[in-house]
């Protein structure tokens, strides 16, 4: 399982393309969308190399992972971090040198990987122990065009590398 969430890039390609400045980077680095201002042009959806953005069918505006900013503000952990039983997801303040995340980054600096580093987006989501074939777009053969879940809903496509 390779979780692919918004990378909350330091140099986010989705922000400058927005024609109405509806998407922006907060002071703490989290990239969010103002859904009241968004016109739904989907330019940011195309500009994100990580498929992290989509048009929300209900609001008809651009939507994305917010690092659960609303939970962070309430002193809670993001839902994905909270629910990960293996404790494999770690979030923290990288600007605080004493935080767990800062210490781990210092400890594993050489082994850390980010997705599509050549895009120069400076992702702020780091992977430890990831299969290197996922750093860039994996070159794989399609096996099955449609994979269905037990309810008959399409989950995606299956590939073999």
């Amino acid at each position, binding site marked *: 399982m390779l979780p692919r969430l918004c990378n909350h890039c330091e140099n986010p390609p989705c922000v400058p393309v927005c024609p109405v400045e509806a998407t922006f980077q907060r002071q703490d680095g989290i990239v969010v969308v103002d859904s009241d201002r968004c016109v739904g042009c989907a330019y940011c959806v195309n500009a994100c190399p990580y498929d992290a953005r989509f048009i929300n069918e209900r609001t008809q505006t651009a939507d994305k992972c917010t690092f659960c900013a609303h939970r962070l503000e309430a002193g809670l952990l993001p839902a994905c971090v909270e629910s990960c039983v293996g404790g494999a997801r770690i979030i923290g303040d990288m600007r605080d040198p004493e935080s767990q995340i800062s210490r781990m980054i210092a400890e594993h600096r050489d082994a850390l990987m980010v997705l599509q580093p050549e895009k120069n987006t400076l992702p702020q989501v780091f992977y430890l122990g990831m299969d290197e074939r996922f750093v860039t777009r994996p070159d794989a053969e399609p096996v099955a065009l449609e994979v269905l879940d037990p309810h008959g809903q399409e989950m995606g496509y*299956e590939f073999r590398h």
Partner: protein
Amino acid sequence: MNSAIELLAPRFDIAWYPWAVQYFFMIALSYATLWLAAPALVFGRPRWLPTARLALLACLTTTLVAPVALLADLHQPLRFWHFYAYANSHSWMSVGSLVLPLYVVGVIVLSWLAWRPALQAHRQAPGLGGLVARWLSLGEPPTPRALVVLVGLGTLALSTGIMLYTGAEVAIVKARPLWHTVWLPPMFVATGFIAAAGLILVLNRLAGERSTAVNRQMLKVMLGACLVAGLVAGSWLLDGINANAGSVAAALASVRDSAEWRSTALWGGLTGVVLFGAVLYLLTGPASRRPTLYAWGWVLGLVALHVGWMFRWVVLMDVQTVARHSAGFHHYGIPAGSSGILGIVGTFGLWLAAILLIDLFVPWRQATQGGSTADISPAAPDHPDVEGALRHG
């Protein structure tokens, strides 16, 4: 690390709908036909007047319809005013939202100036035609030629802004390597001119003008535009043929991995070569057979429109189906509703309605290069345009 991996890639929907293709197609026809109307309309070359009449009809109608398709591609079209309330100079789309309305107004004013003398000559026409002519011509004073030239030059300048922003808007997107090339904007312009010359060939036949001069001029423009398009495509290929990443590498990978992309590349290449060869044959054929050969120009016009539209479809729709973060290609089936077939047909229907309405109420066939009603041939008012429309069907 060398073990086989199986991966389940989620399906990602496309973000820009066929409305985008319709907008890019219509606006390209718009700016290219404006430049084809310019030799007579702005720069006073009388030999280009028959072409300018057809080109201006094409230009105004596509200019009116294009922004409708653009608005429809927004998921929140009623928030279009946010473009002006919260403009962002870093975004090419925002720059475009400022240029586009100015350009649209420029084309409308230019068309009105060009058609005004003919409208004034129709003021006494009976029935609704005369009423519309009296209302649209806004009085008797002559139209100053200098004003036509001034508005024409301004609109031509704005049209280069449209060419620049529509190309740059797509070409700056690094996330889609197939788009991210400096050769994309010039290719949009070149295929735009191919399609525009084709449209005028088709209109020349459909409107019953059947002017040989128009056919010859448009075939020459098409030949030049085909050459430029070939040159741009060749430069793009050579520019990246040795690179491991980038636009050409992504294109070669798509052609290698997907039968659909192979057939698209083959079809595009063949159509381009056949069109170029056919245009060359028509232009260099024996002089005695030229009128017969030129009469078939409208068929090449349809092929040229196909080239212009398909290029935009492949670039804007098909490229969105190339997975950028997972393996393979996403399946895209054109939906039947307004974000699919209905939108495509609807745009063309609206365009046809605009052409027919102008043909009904505006004596565009008698358009001049500005000036006064005295420039209109005296026979013109005796041929109400409604009759003309019926006659030419």
